[in-house]
């Protein structure tokens, strides 16, 4: 049943890279959840280990079937995810001001994480059939626009702005990759430049204030602004070689918000310094280039576009998360792939790795 060529072409490099990043992530998470007397507890570390076991299974599962089957399954997967997103809005568990989780016995899942994969697959199906050298025109862009905006709106409603934005960025990156026709692009840009000030004009005072605070955390010195300062202090205080494993003080005193999810990079940078941060970023860069290389070597558009979508997802999450902890970006709830704590995030990322491996080892199968 298993073709020997699959073993021969298996992408050990990507798997090894993933393994390295996951190890770094688990080390950092261990520090984030143990060295503090308050906040998250050690149990999260073990839970994350369990999630990685499940994630490994999900990865293996998503590498065994021929990814081209996804072309046929895409609408079903997409419909299921939309259903889950609606379901979570209506019946999801209410935690800290948002409805993001569907609780099933002891585990809760975040359908918004899985929505990222669904959007990648459905857009790949659409674009692989339509892409042409001239680029897509406005009429052709309407369907993908709807396909991306529906999950975006459902996710933002939860509210989970971070994940919603990632969905849009993935869709946008894939669209730009398959090229937008020059005239259509001009149209889009001009209409955006006109509507944005118009919308701004119609917003209420408090809405404007919220947006301004989002763009400039310093306006909220007791909330986001404070978090950015603490995060910058944590990162900066790591200096070149870091304070050492489990020695981070900002982390230990629970100065950082969401230290095990959104701000986990600060923990790593404080304890491992510039060297550690550099290595992690290097690994991520390699991973992304590797993903693009898989897209490059793939010999048919559907696989190429999926690989680009997945790589775009990893890229945007890494970039936004790290830029945010270093005070370069507004604070949004975006997790750092492989590093942040979170079951749905782990499983989604591992499925994506599985798909990349899948595309990579089947690149010779072309007809």
């Amino acid at each position, binding site marked *: 049943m298993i073709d020997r060529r699959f073993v021969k072409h298996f992408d050990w490099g990507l798997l090894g890279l993933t393994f390295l990043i996951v190890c770094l992530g688990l080390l950092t998470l261990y520090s984030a959840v143990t060295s*503090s*007397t*308050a*906040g998250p507890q050690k149990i999260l570390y073990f839970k994350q280990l369990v999630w990685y076991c499940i994630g490994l299974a999900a990865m293996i599962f998503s590498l065994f079937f021929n990814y081209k089957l996804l072309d046929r399954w895409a609408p079903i997967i997409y419909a299921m995810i939309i259903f889950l997103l609606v379901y979570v809005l209506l019946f999801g568990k*209410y935690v800290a*001001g948002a409805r993001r989780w569907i609780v099933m016995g002891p585990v809760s899942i975040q359908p918004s994480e899985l929505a990222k994969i669904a959007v990648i697959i459905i857009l790949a199906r659409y674009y692989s059939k339509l*892409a*042409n*050298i*001239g680029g897509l025109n406005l009429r052709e862009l309407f369907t993908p626009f709807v396909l991306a905006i529906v999950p975006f709106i459902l996710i933002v409603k939860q509210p989970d702005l971070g994940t919603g934005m990632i969905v849009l960025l993935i869709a946008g990156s894939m669209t730009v*990759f*398959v*090229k937008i026709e020059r005239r259509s692009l001009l149209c889009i840009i001009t209409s955006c430049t006109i509507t944005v000030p118009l919308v701004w004009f119609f917003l209420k005072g408090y809405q404007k204030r919220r947006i301004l605070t989002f763009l400039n955390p310093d306006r909220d*010195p*007791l909330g986001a*602004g*404070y978090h950015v*300062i*603490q995060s*910058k*202090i*944590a*990162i*900066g*205080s*790591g*200096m*070149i070689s870091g304070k050492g494993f489990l020695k981070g*003080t*900002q982390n230990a*005193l*629970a*100065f950082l918000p969401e230290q095990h999810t959104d701000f986990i990079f600060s923990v790593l*940078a*404080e304890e491992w*310094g*510039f060297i550690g*941060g*550099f290595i992690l*970023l290097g690994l*991520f*860069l390699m991973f*992304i*280039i590797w993903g*693009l290389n898989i*897209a*490059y070597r*793939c*010999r*048919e*558009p559907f696989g*190429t576009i999926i690989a*680009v979508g997945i790589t775009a997802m990893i*890229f945007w999450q890494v*970039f936004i998360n*790290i*830029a945010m902890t*270093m005070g*370069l970006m507004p604070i949004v709830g975006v997790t750092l792939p492989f590093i942040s704590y979170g079951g749905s995030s782990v499983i989604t990322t591992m499925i994506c790795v599985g798909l990349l491996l899948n595309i990579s080892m089947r690149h010779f199968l072309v007809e």
Partner: protein
Amino acid sequence: MTKYLKTADQDWYKQRLVRIAFCVAGTFCLIFMRLFYLQVIHGEELRRLSENNCIRLQSTDPSRGMIFDRNGKLLVDNRPSFDLNIVLKDAKPIEQTVKKLSKYIHVPESELLSKIENEKTVSSYKPILLKKDIGRDALAAIEVRKFDLPGVVVDVKPRRHYIERQTAAHLIGYLSEINADELNSEEYQEYRVGDYIGKFGVEKIFESFLQGKRGGRQVEVNVMGQVVRILKTVDAQPGQNLYLTIDLNVQKKAEALLEGVAGAVAAMDPQTGQILALASSPSFDQNIFVDGMSHDQWDALVSNPLRPLENKVIHGEYPPASTFKVITAIAALEESVIDKKTTFYCPGYYKFGNRVYRCWKPAGHDNVNIIKALAESCDVYFYQVGQKLGIDRLSMYAIASGLGSPTGIDLDHEAAGLIPTAEWKKRRTGVAWQGGETLSVAIGQGFDLATPLQMLVLASAVANGGNIYKPLILKSVYSPEGSVILERKKQLAGKLPVSKKTLEIIKEGLKEVVNNPKGTAWLARVEGLDISGKTGTAQVVGRSKERGLSEEELAHQLKSHAWFIAYAPSADPKIAVSVIVEHGGHGSSAAAPIAMEVIKTYFGYDKNSKPEERKVASNP
């Protein structure tokens, strides 16, 4: 249309992928540079700031909106409370600091240490609350020795203060510390542990106006935990001020009149629905909910048989008794069962089936028409009218007049009362409606139940010509700077099912209650004031069998509830009043004088006339 010739092939994709790779690399360069900037260029400085976790947040609580009466008299404000905190990280050596502290504020060391022990899990830079509201003396003692007490911080927080102890407690309500369930609910997202929220009455219902917005500051502290530099400040925004519709004078008078009994008084402006007084007796001191009460205080509140925590104006359901005759009269006149001239003979009893229904006056009322029947509250007249109407027509009028459902006042858990129908009884008990029960219902006994507020709304509607207004407790809301945020308008909830002609007859009857020497409230009348009203004496059944009561208590428990509803002046009503005194006996003697006094106070008659002590005969 040559698109198919330009189908994208893999080489085209490869070109684009190379460009993307360059973009990614460029972005990563940016991130590397930022990392280098923070960790290498600014590393030293940021390391210094991290050493002592210098940058901290201190929050300042907003001062809660004040509450005034309709004339701007202050009912509720805030006073400063000095809360003693300790920051463990700065307080080293802890034992020594606590020892000194216990000496200065006269609190045993063990108590302070146990507080600290309980909060140990909180990270050591966060202040732990040792004692709330330490008072000015202790504050002075600590401030003087500040440098001897590292890590000890006194927080000044606004604390709720109810100026008039026990006054309008049920209306205003109280604050209390937020509990775990509330913290997890959607409603209280913005709140934190230790916050005070409105738990009852106006404080709860109008929480969103009153709360204000928390502020705070980012500060840099030294090794002792003392602030060396304030980096950023966000001012707390005080809450908005509420003006209630109640009149403090009338309110206090009503409460004074209820002193020592269980009961309720409610008054409103019949032209607007604005509540002028809302008193429930016995009352309680709201301050103990804020300052913290002892077990005994709490036990005393909940075990008191007179139920001080219950707002009897809206929660108390009583048989409306003879006050209900207003409804029976309206129904009969509107349905043409009787007219103004119809008379019945009252021998003091009425035979129905094989039972004898008694009039309250054993000697009988002789020939009675509707005016006299209302004025002298003749039961026999209304037995016959009720019988002719039948239960369902009667109930229809009662329900259309607003009875049997909440009035919609802005307070929690308003009771609905009860207006029975034949169908309701069948559904509820499985037994068909009995003709005799209609007779009881026609005089407001039997299954009938109403709250004092419902009867007040009814009295107001009769007074103002038939408009049922929603009772309002909030008059206006002002921002702390003094601009109007909200001005409550009167809200029409419905119309009495009554023609102008019928209403005139009813009003004439109600006027006779007070102004005819034979009227049931004649002895409670006030010279110079033109008042209309209706007495009621609600027979009590059942209750007495509870618990082991002494004979005296038992006798008290079996006494009737006394009702009086009224409005004045009769021609152009400015105030409507509803009074109930639990186990007060007759409406004419126990309730009517209270209503009269309230009306006198409202019109300012208080100053020149002597207080009550009016001799009243014992008829209902």
